[in-house]
């Protein structure tokens, strides 16, 4: 269960988020949507505990994030930020192995190696595991970073625009994997993801959180909240939700 109580964030005295309160506990995929500058990334960072709100508080699974120690928090939530740049000479396997750091602090156990192997397999990275990060394409690189966050084995996985540099094939590939992994099963995770592509949100999300100008517009199950009227109002342009080949998508009205 994630709960935000009157969360506000200011940067240089400019309000970025204003009085956000929401709560949900279901697993699955939650999409954070809204126009540019709505405060989506700030909200995601507040939910991760890496950004302390100016006021209000965030609770995850009963823990107040502000009072959690960093290593404990890292076993509860993993966050993949936008455009992470790494100068170190890392292979994919090295990078994914870092996901286990909160659990072993430099002394990996047999279980850590199992989880790393599983993450590499889940994200189809086995054949690439010895390749250097610097030599990868955008899609491979993003898969590797998501696999690292996945290997962290946290109940909550937060992703900040992980699809921004990807073509439709890689977008679909990653979202299909996240969708499968967020379904009930032994490794089920709750995924919260900032999305710009409303078509992707319409197709894959179970729940949406819509923001505009730092304020919560709506939150709830996708089927209830994601309507053409709400989206048109949110983005200030005519949009409608359509069904093509049995899959939902968003098209210009």
């Amino acid at each position, binding site marked *: 269960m994630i709960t935000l109580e009157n969360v506000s964030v200011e940067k240089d005295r400019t309000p970025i988020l204003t009085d956000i309160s929401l709560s949900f506990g279901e697993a699955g995929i939650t999409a954070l949507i809204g126009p540019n500058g709505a405060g989506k990334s700030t909200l995601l960072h507040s939910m*991760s505990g*890496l950004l302390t709100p100016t006021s209000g508080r965030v609770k995850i699974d009963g823990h107040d994030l502000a009072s959690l120690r*960093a*290593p*404990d*928090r*890292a*076993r509860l*939530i*993993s*966050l*993949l*930020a936008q455009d*992470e*740049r*790494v*100068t*170190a*000479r*890392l292979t994919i396997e*090295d990078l994914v192995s*870092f*996901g286990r*750091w*909160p659990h072993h*602090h*430099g002394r990996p156990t047999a279980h850590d190696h199992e989880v790393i192997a599983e993450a590499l397999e889940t994200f189809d990275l086995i054949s690439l595991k010895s390749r250097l990060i610097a030599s990868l394409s955008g899609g491979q690189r993003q898969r590797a970073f998501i696999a*690292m*966050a996945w290997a*962290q084995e946290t109940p909550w996985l937060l992703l900040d625009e992980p699809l921004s540099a990807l073509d439709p094939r890689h977008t679909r590939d990653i979202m299909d994997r996240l969708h499968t992994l967020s379904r009930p099963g032994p490794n089920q995770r709750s995924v919260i993801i900032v999305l710009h592509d409303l078509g992707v949100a319409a197709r894959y999300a179970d729940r949406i959180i819509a923001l505009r100008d730092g304020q919560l517009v709506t939150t709830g199950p996708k089927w209830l909240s994601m309507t053409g009227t709400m989206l048109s109002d949110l983005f200030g342009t005519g949009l409608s939700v359509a069904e093509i080949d049995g899959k939902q998508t968003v098209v210009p009205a």
Partner: protein
Amino acid sequence: MAKIRFLCLIAVFFGVCALFLLWQLRDPKALILSLRLTKLGALVVVGAAVGAATVVFQTITANRLLTPGIVGFDALYIFLQTMLVMTLGGTGYATLPQLGQFGAEIVTMVVTALLLFGLMLRRGTEDMLRLILTGVILGVLLRGLAGLAQRLLDPSEFAIVQGASFASFGGVDKTQLWIAMVLLAVTLLFAMRLSRQLDIVALGRTTARSLGQEYDRVVLASLALVALLVAVSTALVGPVTFLGLLAASLAYAFVPTWRHIYLIPAAALIGASILIFGQFVFERLLGLQSTLAVIVEFAGGLLFLALVLRRSPR
């Protein structure tokens, strides 16, 4: 692979040390050996300190073109020397107790660096770029002030300042060297203890913090460590700007790993080996035709240009 190459570096290091100490060793052997040992000690301290400091600095700034020199250490050192000569005069400067001067220089440089880091990083380590830019501007300001003061000096005093502005490995005081060696050993041990955390810090601020690493604490500890390493080296022999870049770049190229437990000592060994071998070539083969510091700076400067031109800064 990294382990084997690291062992090769250790072998190279001891090889150049032996070459430096034993090449054409004539009578009185004990005296010559003792003189060579003192010089070797200074070369090792400076090379190792600057090499290790640069790897740590490049990791926390996530930029492999930067050296700690960019935050104005060299300029501060030259400024301090100029002010000392200006206020005490040439004779006063020459009669300063060397140990006191050495200690005061280390303390001044570390305190200034920590003040700068502390002020700049009050809002957290997101402000790393601001820290670097402030360091650059501070360096320019101090160089400007030193330049102005140098114009007011008489030519003999000016020559003293000029002499102190380039690293010199001859005539290092033994007591200072011992202190520097102890400080270096303690700081390097501390750096090795931080090496695992630095591996995580190298992933970037958000990723490192998401992995539960207390990023700001590690970065501040690393900056303090860099300040101490550079201050010890500069106070001992004078400024060497590009040696660190040379040592760190060769360490990344020769020991292909992300593990700081290898990278830090590798850069230290390479830095020391470059200086020892360079000094050997100039002193024994070329008959002191040039100054080692000038050539190291020249080679480091060329490498810097090559790195800048080869790829966009990361």
